[in-house]
């Protein structure tokens, strides 16, 4: 381990060819290839999942929990991410897919879409009470929260300091179930079915959580096969189950901003981690102060683009849009949620920075290192080929100065040096 940060991504050395595809797609430059094997710096990784998608050799594997851990609990609850319902062919109904998850062995199944409307009211309330911190940045994407911690720490006070919908639902269900079923907290197992590695990480290492939240996270991709098997039976013998089609759109980028946007709140929506970084940089420059609320999602089109999903993000988006127009939501007990909100149950403690950019704590030493980096940079070819295992020539120069690499790692320099050819 060697780091205080948990990550839901692991590298299988035996599959890694050292091709550097992952190195080039990492937004925080967290990956290096040394001795032909990739290595992720746990301090820099934000669990965006870009490397998981980029790896062609199944060497970067998302880790989520094995399904049988639910057996450790007397009462088992699944909370499903809205993106899940966009993963099936059109003959599979929303209700059937939900029913199939229940039959995986849960006692109760709930879903993110239930609390979408309530979440919108929390966000509006928060934005109105924190006008001095304009713009407020959304907190529901765990990769974005971590990205801000490592690369844009000056924006931490702008983050919406409230739990995301699935965690709000977790708090609500814990209270409700322990009262109704007369069960102790440790007997109730609450699990998320998630579209991305960032959500798995957030379950195992929640940022700013005051209270006990979930007990595990299952990847959509991992349970998909089992769910499809169960679906064959269910489609022949459908059973009634509550659905919340209107709330499903939470999985789609753009919709949350549209819902929050109102007379006195102007909202902006961004998806894809490169766009997210561009927008955060502009927020830092105070160039987006005209917005009251900005929704930021690391994946293409929002959670439907998560790397643990099976369906293409655009197809999944289209299906969810279609489903969201069919049927009515079952009314929920908003009073209970409002009571918990008023008691501060959904608050998050102030988020702390995880700075990765600093070369040194002492600014004078940092300047010295920067000068050395610039010296090495002039020696390097400037091709940014990543053949050395660092993402760019600048990153290699930085690695050399920080003692993590040497000039010999540059493949181009080696080739052009006649002394090496004779060896």
């Amino acid at each position: 381990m060697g780091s205080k940060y948990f990550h839901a991504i692991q590298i299988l050395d035996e599959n890694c060819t050292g091709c550097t595809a992952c190195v080039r797609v990492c937004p925080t430059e967290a990956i290096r290839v040394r001795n032909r094997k990739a290595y992720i710096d746990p301090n820099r990784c934000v669990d965006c999942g870009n490397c998981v998608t980029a790896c062609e050799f199944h060497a970067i594997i998302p880790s989520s929990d094995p399904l049988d851990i639910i057996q450790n609990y007397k009462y088992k609850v699944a909370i499903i991410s809205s993106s899940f319902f966009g993963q099936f062919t059109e003959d599979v109904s929303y209700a059937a897919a939900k029913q199939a998850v229940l039959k995986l062995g849960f006692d109760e199944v709930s879903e993110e879409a239930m609390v979408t409307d309530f979440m919108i009211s929390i966000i509006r309330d928060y934005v109105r009470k924190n006008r001095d911190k304009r713009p407020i940045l959304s907190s529901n994407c765990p990769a974005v929260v971590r990205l801000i911690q490592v690369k844009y720490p000056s924006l931490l006070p702008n983050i919406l300091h409230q739990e995301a919908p699935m965690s709000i639902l977790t708090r609500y269900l814990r209270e409700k179930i322990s009262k109704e079923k007369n069960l102790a907290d440790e007997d109730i197992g609450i699990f998320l079915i998630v579209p991305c590695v960032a959500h798995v990480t957030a379950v195992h290492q929640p940022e700013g959580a005051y209270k006990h939240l979930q007990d595990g996270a299952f990847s959509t991709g991992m349970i998909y096969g089992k769910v499809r098997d169960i679906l064959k039976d269910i489609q022949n013998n459908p059973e009634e189950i509550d659905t919340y089609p209107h709330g499903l759109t939470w999985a789609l980028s753009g919709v949350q901003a549209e819902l929050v946007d109102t007379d006195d709140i102007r909202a902006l929506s961004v998806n894809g981690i490169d766009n997210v970084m561009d927008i955060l940089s502009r927020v830092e420059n105070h160039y987006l102060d005209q917005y009251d609320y900005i929704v930021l999602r690391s994946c293409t089109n929002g959670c439907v683009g998560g790397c643990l999903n099976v369906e293409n993000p655009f197809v999944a988006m289209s299906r969810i849009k279609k489903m969201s127009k069919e049927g009515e939501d079952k009314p929920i007990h908003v009073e209970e949620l409002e009571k918990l909100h008023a008691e501060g149950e959904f608050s998050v403690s102030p988020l702390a920075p995880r700075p990765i950019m600093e070369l040194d704590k002492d600014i004078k030493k940092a300047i010295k290192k920067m000068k050395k980096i610039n010296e090495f940079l002039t020696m390097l070819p400037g091709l940014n080929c990543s053949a050395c295992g660092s993402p760019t020539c600048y990153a290699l120069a930085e690695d050399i100065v920080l003692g993590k690499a040497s000039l010999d790692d540059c493949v181009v320099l080696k080739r052009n040096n006649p002394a090496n050819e004779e060896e």
Partner: protein
Amino acid sequence: MAEYWYIAEGFEERIKDFQSRKTEAEVNLDFEIPEKDFNAAGKGSSELKDLLKRLGVNSEILRRIAVASYEAEINVAAHSKGGVMYSAVYDDLIHIRFQDDGPGIEDIDQAMVPGFSTADDLVRELGFGAGLGLPNIKKNSDAMHIVSAKGSPTLLELFIYIS
């Protein structure tokens, strides 16, 4: 040539000291700003921001530098025939010079009035030209110096102390 100086209260001595010591900068970063190239404009200040993050500059100061340098960079792209942004990092301050190729500022005092703008239609269509550029730079800088005249190049310097 007309000259304009603004020095925030309490920084008079430090600016005087800086002018007289003529030391070489620790790190330099130069950036070309082409005329009316709004795709590239902002890259110079964005690179400077990354550099300052690496040096561990305090995040509030960093944001002031980001705002001031971005505004100034956009100003050069929007109003001049192009120019260069020269950033110089010292261990106690950041000194940024914007040197353009004209056409100069006719009345600097008027340009300092919030809301005053000479931006053309193209610039306004792109969402710039609200007349807040120079006042915003001033607000975020510890000192600011402009040398210009109608028909001449403009030099804008800004100084922000990091310690």
